[in-house]
Each structure stands twice: as C-alpha cells, then as structure tokens.
C-alpha cells in the first residue's frame, strides 16, 4: 500500500530500549540528580549560582526578583523546566534545610513546617557572602575549566571553585535511576579541621578524621543516638543514622508538667511535623497512653515548640520512650554517600570525599597562582623595560625625534635597526644599535607618559619593581613547594572557618534503645475457659459464677486466674507455650473464643495439649511429667516462669512423647496404666526432683511395643476410681509396688 519512497531505518526493539534507556539513566545520574564530589553541587544549583554571579547579584547589592534569576538561568545554561530551577534556588536559601545557606532570600521562602515558598514573581534573592567568597571567588583567575552551554553561545564553569567540602557541609539528596544519594549536613568548622588534618597526614584513618568530624550536624539540631555506628558509616559511606528530637520537661504551677519538643529530627522537616501531631493524637485516641492531656504546636520564629500537656503523675521517661518508639520523634536517616567523582557515580567514604576535595584544592591553587605568576612576569618585563628606558631616556628621545614613523622607532628599540633615523652623533647611533628591548617593552615605552620621568616617579617605579620581584618569588615558592602551597591553603581554610563557623547544633551520643512499659492494666480476677477445639476466652468472674455449671460441662479447661497472669499450655511434643492473659479476648460467656493457634506458637495440626494451667498456679506447684516410654520426673514449677513465648518443658528420648503433666502437690502416689492393661502403683517419693531439661527415671517396666497410656496421681486416703472395661475400678486397690516393676493386670 505504501508507495511513497520513505527513509525508514529498521531498528530492533531491544536495541532502541537499551540505547534510549542508558542515555536517559546516565544523563540523570551524571548531570541531574547527583552532586559532583568537588563542589557538592548538582548542575542546576551550580548554574543558578553562576548565573547570579554573572548578573552581579552580590551580597552587598540589592535583592533581585527570583523570576529574573530563574529566567536568566534557564535561557543561558539550563534548558529545562522553570520549576526545578526555582525549587533548587529556594532550597539553597532555606536555613532549616541547609547547613549553610548559599542564597540570601527575601520574602516567603517557605517554613520548617513544610509551607512552600511564594511564587517566584514575589520573592527576591541575592548571593550569600559565603557563596561569593568561598564558592565563586577567583573564577576570573582561570581556576576551573569552562564549557560551552547548550547552544554554544555562552560559557559555563564545569565545576565551581569551592574551597570547602560543600558536599559534607550542606549534604545532598537526590534520586537518580537505579541509585540515589543521601548525605547528611555537617559542621563547617569540623569539616575544615578534618581537611587540614588530612593535609597534614595523608594516611590518617577515618577514626582519626572523626576526631574532628564528630558526626552529622543537622540545621534542625536533634540528637544522633548511635554514635558508635557512625565510624562504620563514614568508612563505607552507607548506613543508618538514628536521630531523635530534643525533649524538655517544663514544670507548671500546681505540680503539673508538660513535655516540650524544642528540636525535631531532620527527617521530620516539612509535612512530617503534622504527621507527628496526628500520631500522638492517635496514641491518645487508642488509649495507648492516658498521660497526654493536650497537644499544641506553638512553633514560631523563635523555633520549634511542640507542647504536650501531661497528667500530674506521669512517668515522663516512660512516655518519652514511648514517643521515640511509636512516633517519628526517633527516626532513621539513611546514608548513602554517592556522588559523581571523575565522571562516575561512586559511593565514597568520609576520607575519600576529603581526599577528592584536597586534590581539588591543590588544583585550584595551582591554577590560581600560575595565572597570578604569569601576570607578574608580564609586569616584570615591562617594569624592567621602563627602568632601562629611564637610564637611556636621552637616547630614546633622540631616536624619537630622528624617526619618521612609529614602526621605525619600535624596530630600533627592539632590534637596534638605526637605518633612516637621524642621530646627532655617531656615538648615539652606535648606542642605539645596541638597544634590545622586547616587543612588549617597546610598546610600553612608546606609550609611557612624560611625567614618569620625574625623579620620584622613577623611584616609585623601582619600588614597584621590587614588589613585583617579591611577588614572583612568593608565587614561585608556592607553586614549587608542596609545604608552601599547603600553608596557603590552610591559611585560607582558617580564615573561612574564622568567619563562617557556627556552633554545632546536633549532639552526638550513644543512647539505649528506647524501651517503655505499656500502661499497666487494672488487675482483676477472671475466669479462663477453653473448649475441646482449643478455642479460648476469658470471662468475667461474675459471669462465671452465673454460668458455673454450663461452663464446667461444656469446657475442657475452666479455672480462675488473674488477667495479668500467663496461661501455660504443655503439649505432647514436650513444649510449653505461654499466652499472656491480657492477649486473650475478654468476652461474654456465649461469645466465640479465639483458637490457641492464633494467640501462641501452638500448632493444633502438629501437637496436642496435655495440661493447661495459669502460671501463677504452676509457680507454686511441683509438676509430674510422664512420657509414653514411662519416663517420670518431678520439676519445680518456678522453672517454667520464662519470658519466651515457647520453651522446651522437658527432654524427650527418641520417638517419645509426653502423655501426662500434672500438679503433684499434695498427692503421694502415682499410678501408671499401660497399653497392655497393666497397672502399677508406687509412691511419689520414689520419683526424684529434677531440672526441666532432665529426661527422668523409668516408672514402669513395659513389654514390647507397650506404652504408658495414662498416669494418675492419688492421695492414699482418698479413693480414686476410673472406668476400666466399662466397669469402675478403684485405683487405690492396685497393689502397691516398687517403681520400675511390671505392675499387675487386673482380672475383670
């Protein structure tokens, strides 16, 4: 159908996808989302700052409309959306977001509570002094490379000549493709000290650097609570910082107290403050705490102030810990110190970042002093020429007067060509032939003003020359000697620190994991019920009194217990599962219970319950254990008071299983019944008291394939009858024998 001759290139789907995707991914990684390790800036930030520098919006000049800055940046260097440029400009001006703001904003630049900045047509901005002196100085001294902009009409710096490791001071965050970066801000003074320490000793360890850099320093303050883990984070560049807000207790009149949050964790910045308030409200609503009476956010220009009013007798520490645990008052800051280094994304350690920066500093300084040196050398050449000219000024005047053109004079001065020049004497001509000024010197002489011939001016010239020579010597020294250059760099770092350092806001310490006690329940007596399917519930004591008969006939286990107690379930596999009574639903008598499976590790498909009792009762008791292979032992009940949900209650032999657990307490005799129909009665005292990890002693001799079916505990004075072959059988009548004998087979 297609008759037109078309230029169609056949391409493979996979190829197009890969090519397009890698172009996109790498562009986002290298030139959008990740900062350069040297200046710590993403391209959009660098371009905005450079544009402001070009527009001359200095810290000592008036503010300019942000819209102008954004428009200019977009048109000259950054052909992308205006919103991304304005957003980055705003963030650079937010003192609660950045360790050191780079832009001085005027107008509404947003707030710590997440309110956005005003539209860019309203707001104004200019550079900070720090930005101008530490980020943008010396750009005219050829310290960094420039590259053409997108349409090759302008030049922009590849990197800004930043004299401090901005990537540490201001941190960075950015999501690229397949990777993301997150670097916390640090204290300027500490970082500068670490750079100096590295310059003094290149083999310094991360631990050594951390003598200066104690940890992150967030503009929101707060407390870093995992100090010991910081070293690993700084060594690998990856890890998690645990961060808490700062909480103070204020006493009110009448003995009441209030908790005041004065610093939030950095991660709570913005809309998360509102979320925190909601979380606290939720804690109150769900009755997780009853200590908080009121919450109010009183933050203002004085800073953060979130007030929680408390009840009189509040356990403040417990409540604070609960807030740490249940809300974002304690949060983690995920660190991944990823930056573009030498054109590649790399996860860097603290030392590597400083290493890269120091290399950069030396490069900057070398280039700066090379430029300065060349300038001085040029000056020197001219000054030498002028001084020489003053010595022979009479001759030069003679040449000037005898020449016909400027060229002629120049030739004479440079090469001593005297042809065509009229001299007063042969001697002057001879002297003129010897002149050897350089091209530049000759030009300077020709352009020299006559007043320069005044004696004092000549002296001044000589003084200037001496100054130039001094400068040259100094610059040469800086360029040739590593130690001199280090000194220059360190002096500069010192002066930056002196002018711009601020006190650390975040404290770094080690804190215990926040542990809080849940609100104590009111202690009361309840009744535990469990049916034969393993459904359990608690009912009120009075409800039990009313339904006593029904309860005992319908339920397998019925016993009173405290609601603070634990229910212990012993199973045939030798385990004991504990369930907090508080976890069992307290319901009405006719309500459905909850299966034990859902409340504990008990698995109805794999094991059977043998004995269920409250821990309070077991603690006071002695338990008799009997297994299928007739291993018997007595264990102190207190041994089962464990905090774990499941423990091993006994040690079982191979293929053995527990058949009986019971409170031996007052009982003095034991009767074992085997599958072969044998009964053995013996004294309880023949079974010794053992640990719960023991296997026990043999209770009854068994035939082949015979197992113990039942065990009974009896009291000698009291008759105990069971139904055996459909007839009552009084166990007290079984002949009393020794333990570990065969027993008797009753004839019925």
């Amino acid at each position, binding site marked *: 159908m297609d008759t037109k001759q078309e230029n*169609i290139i056949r391409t493979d789907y996979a190829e197009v996808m890969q090519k397009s995707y890698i172009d996109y991914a790498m562009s986002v990684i290298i030139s959008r989302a990740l900062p350069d390790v040297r200046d710590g800036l993403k391209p959009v930030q660098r371009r905005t700052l450079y544009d402001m520098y070009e527009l001359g919006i200095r810290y000592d000049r008036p503010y300019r409309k942000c819209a102008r800055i954004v428009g200019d940046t977009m048109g000259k260097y950054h052909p992308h959306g205006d919103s991304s440029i304005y957003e980055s400009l705003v963030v650079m001006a937010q003192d609660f977001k950045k360790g050191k703001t780079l832009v001085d904003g005027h107008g509404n630049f947003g707030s710590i509570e997440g309110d956005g900045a005003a539209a860019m047509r309203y707001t104004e901005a200019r550079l900070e002094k720090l930005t101008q002196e530490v980020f943008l100085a010396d750009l005219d001294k050829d310290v960094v490379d420039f590259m053409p902009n997108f349409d090759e009409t302008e030049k922009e710096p590849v990197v800004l000549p930043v004299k401090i490791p901005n990537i540490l001071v201001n941190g960075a965050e950015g999501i690229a493709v397949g990777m993301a970066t997150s670097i916390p801000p640090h204290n300027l003074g500490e970082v500068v000290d670490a750079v100096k320490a590295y310059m003094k000793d290149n083999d310094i360890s991360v631990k050594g650097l951390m003598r200066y850099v104690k940890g992150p320093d967030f503009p929101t303050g707060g407390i870093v609570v995992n100090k010991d883990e910081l070293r690993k984070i700084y060594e690998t560049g990856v890890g998690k910082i645990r961060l808490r807000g700062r909480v103070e207790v204020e006493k009110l009149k009448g003995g009441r107290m209030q908790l005041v949050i004065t610093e939030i964790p950095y991660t709570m910045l913005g809309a998360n403050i509102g979320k925190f308030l909601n979380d606290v409200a939720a804690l109150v609503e769900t009755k997780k705490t009853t200590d908080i009476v009121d919450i109010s956010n009183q933050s203002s220009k004085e800073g953060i102030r979130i007030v929680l009013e408390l009840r009189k007798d509040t356990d403040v520490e417990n409540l604070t810990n609960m807030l740490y645990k249940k809300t974002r008052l304690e949060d983690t800051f995920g660190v991944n110190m990823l930056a573009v280094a030498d054109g590649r994304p790399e996860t860097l350690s603290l030392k590597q970042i400083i290493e890269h920066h120091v290399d950069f500093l030396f490069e900057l300084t070398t280039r700066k002093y090379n430029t300065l040196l060349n300038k001085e050398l040029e000056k020197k050449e001219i000054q030498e020429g002028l001084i020489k000219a003053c010595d022979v000024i009479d001759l030069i005047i003679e040449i000037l007067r005898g020449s016909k053109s400027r060229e002629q004079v120049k030739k004479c001065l440079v090469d001593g060509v005297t042809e065509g020049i009229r001299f007063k004497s042969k001697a002057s001509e001879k002297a003129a032939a010897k002149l050897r000024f350089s091209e530049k010197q000759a030009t300077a002489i020709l352009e020299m003003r006559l007043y320069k011939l005044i004696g004092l001016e000549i002296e001044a010239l000589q003084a200037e020359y001496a100054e130039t020579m001094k400068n040259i010597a100094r610059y040469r020294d800086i360029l040739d000697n590593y130690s001199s250059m280090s000194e220059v760099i360190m002096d500069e770092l010192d002066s930056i620190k002196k002018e711009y350092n601020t006190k650390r806001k975040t404290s770094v310490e080690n804190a215990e994991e926040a542990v809080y006690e849940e609100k104590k329940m009111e202690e009361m007596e309840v009744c535990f019920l469990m049916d034969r399917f393993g459904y359990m519930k608690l009912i009120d004591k009075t409800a039990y009194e009313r339904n006593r008969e029904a309860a005992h006939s319908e339920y397998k286990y019925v016993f009173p217990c405290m609601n603070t107690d634990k229910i212990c379930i012993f199973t045939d596999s030798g385990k004991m599962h504990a369930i907090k009574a508080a976890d069992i639903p307290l319901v009405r008598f006719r309500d459905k219970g909850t299966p034990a499976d859902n409340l504990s590790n008990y698995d109805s498909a794999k094991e059977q319950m043998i004995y269920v009792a409250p821990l309070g009762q077991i603690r006071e008791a002695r338990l008799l254990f009997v297994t299928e292979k007739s291993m018997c032992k007595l264990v102190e009940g207190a041994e089962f008071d464990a905090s774990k949900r499941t423990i091993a209650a006994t040690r079982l032999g191979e293929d053995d299983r527990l058949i009986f657990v019971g409170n031996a307490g007052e009982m003095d005799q034991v009767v074992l019944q085997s599958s072969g129909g044998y009964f053995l009665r013996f004294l309880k005292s023949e079974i010794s008291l053992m640990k719960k990890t023991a296997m026990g002693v043999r209770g009854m001799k068994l035939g082949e394939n015979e197992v113990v079916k039942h065990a009974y505990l009896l009291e000698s004075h009291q008759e105990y009858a069971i139904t055996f072959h459909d007839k009552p059988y009084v166990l007290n009548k079984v002949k009393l024998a020794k333990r570990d004998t065969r027993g008797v087979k009753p004839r019925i």
Partner: protein
Amino acid sequence: MLGEQLVLFFDRNLETLKTVLSCAEKAAKIRKTEERAKTNLLTKQKYSFDSNGKLANCEKKDPSLCEIFIVEGDSAGGSAKTARDRNYQAILPIRGKILNVEKASIDKILANAEIKTMINAFGCGFSEGYGNDFDISKLRYDKIVIMADADVDGAHISTLLLTLFYRFMPELIYEGHVYIAMPPLYKVMPKKGAEEYLYDDKALEKYRRSHKPGSFTLQRYKGLGEMDAQQLWETTLNPETRMMKRVEIEDARLASSVTEVLMGSDVPPRKSFIYEHARDAEIDI
C-alpha cells in the same frame, strides 16, 4: 460439614483468610474499572474523538493510509497539529511521562487517562482488562509514530511508550506498525548556500569537517517546541523528506528480558545494567 470445618480452618489461619479476601476485593475493583472503561469505550466509539478531546484526527478513514503521531507535551502538540497533513495524519499529544506499565498494576493502567486516550484512539482494544478484546484488524492507523523531543527525557518517554505497546499490544510491534520519528538535532545556516538539517552528531561532525568554523551558525533543537510548524512538517512529518525508525523485534526472548530489566521493579539488575553500559551512553549535559 464443609462449612463447619472451613470456619475452624479460617479461625486458625487468619492470614489465609485475609489473602483470600484481598484477592477478591482486588478482583472486584479491577472488574469495576474494566466495566467502567468498557462502557466508556462503547459509548465513545461511535465518535472519533476521545474522552478528553485531545486527539486531532485525520479525514481519511482508510487505516492503511492513516498515521497517528504521539507527541510529547502540549507545546509540541500545537505546532504538530498545524503542521500535519490533515488528510491522513492524526496527532495525539500526551503530557509528560506516561505510567510505567511494567511496574503498575492492571487497574492503575486502565485508570490512567493517557493510556485510555491511546487505546481509544487506536481502536484495536487492549490485550488485558477490556475483556481481552485486542483485535489488530480494527487498528485505525497503519503507522503509530512516537514523536518525542530529541533529548534524554524524550528517550525515556519513548521507552515508556514502547513498554506499553510491547506488553499490551505486542502485535503492533510484531506487525511493524510502530515507528519512532526522528526530528533533526541541528540546523546549520551557512552564510552562503541552503540551510541544512542534521539528524545526529555524526552528521554534524561531517558537516564541521567540510565547512570552515565561523562560516555557518548552528541551532540545536532541544525540543519539538522549538520548531515552527513549517519546519516540523519539512523535517519530521512530510513522508518525502522525513526519517523514521521502524521498531521490530528480532529476538522475542531478549525483548522480554530487556523490558523486565529496564522497566521492572527489581533494582539490582537495572543497576548492574547501568554500570555495564555506562560507557556507551551519550550524556546530555
């Protein structure tokens, strides 16, 4: 009997019950979305405009002659509408980056306005969701042309669109209906002689070698919006002068695995792909 046991079972296996319930809920939600989408589709099919009126359709109805251009951004869509030959060229502007269908769930995909517009425009249904009514014989256009800016974001949009076609209308690609337009990257304006459009960096290199620097001025096209309608027609739309790439699948298994690695939700393979191919990238600064 079963009922009794089932209650016992669910009491003990709350997680299972939850899973069953959430599955049912999800299915119901999808069914509802489908239903809605389907009714939308049915009511709108009578007319040639779509639900948000973005499609600028062509006059001819013969599918074998018609072309549809999917244009990145409203700003380029306007000039494309002016520039086209309205006899057989339809324009569908889409805004920004469309949903990554490899990561999204089917109900999200069906709820996406951009994707719905495209399905409506193509007229051939969708291989999932709308009762699986994909039917290539109903396709209204012979050529579906992706026209994105010549920058890296344009490249990203192309990959997103290709993923959509590959996953849900693969026949479009297998039968060679999907094209990628190639707008020129540069325009050179020499002091003497005619202007020229250059379509890639190699052409520019060649041009630079044969012409003295300074003897021409260069315009770099970052976006389709930079061209006026006439230029757009000459360079990108006119079948006699334009260049296009036809997307074909040579190795189906490779195509599937590439899509999964690049667009899927698993990050580590993507990361290693990026590290492996980092050197081949043309970075846009």
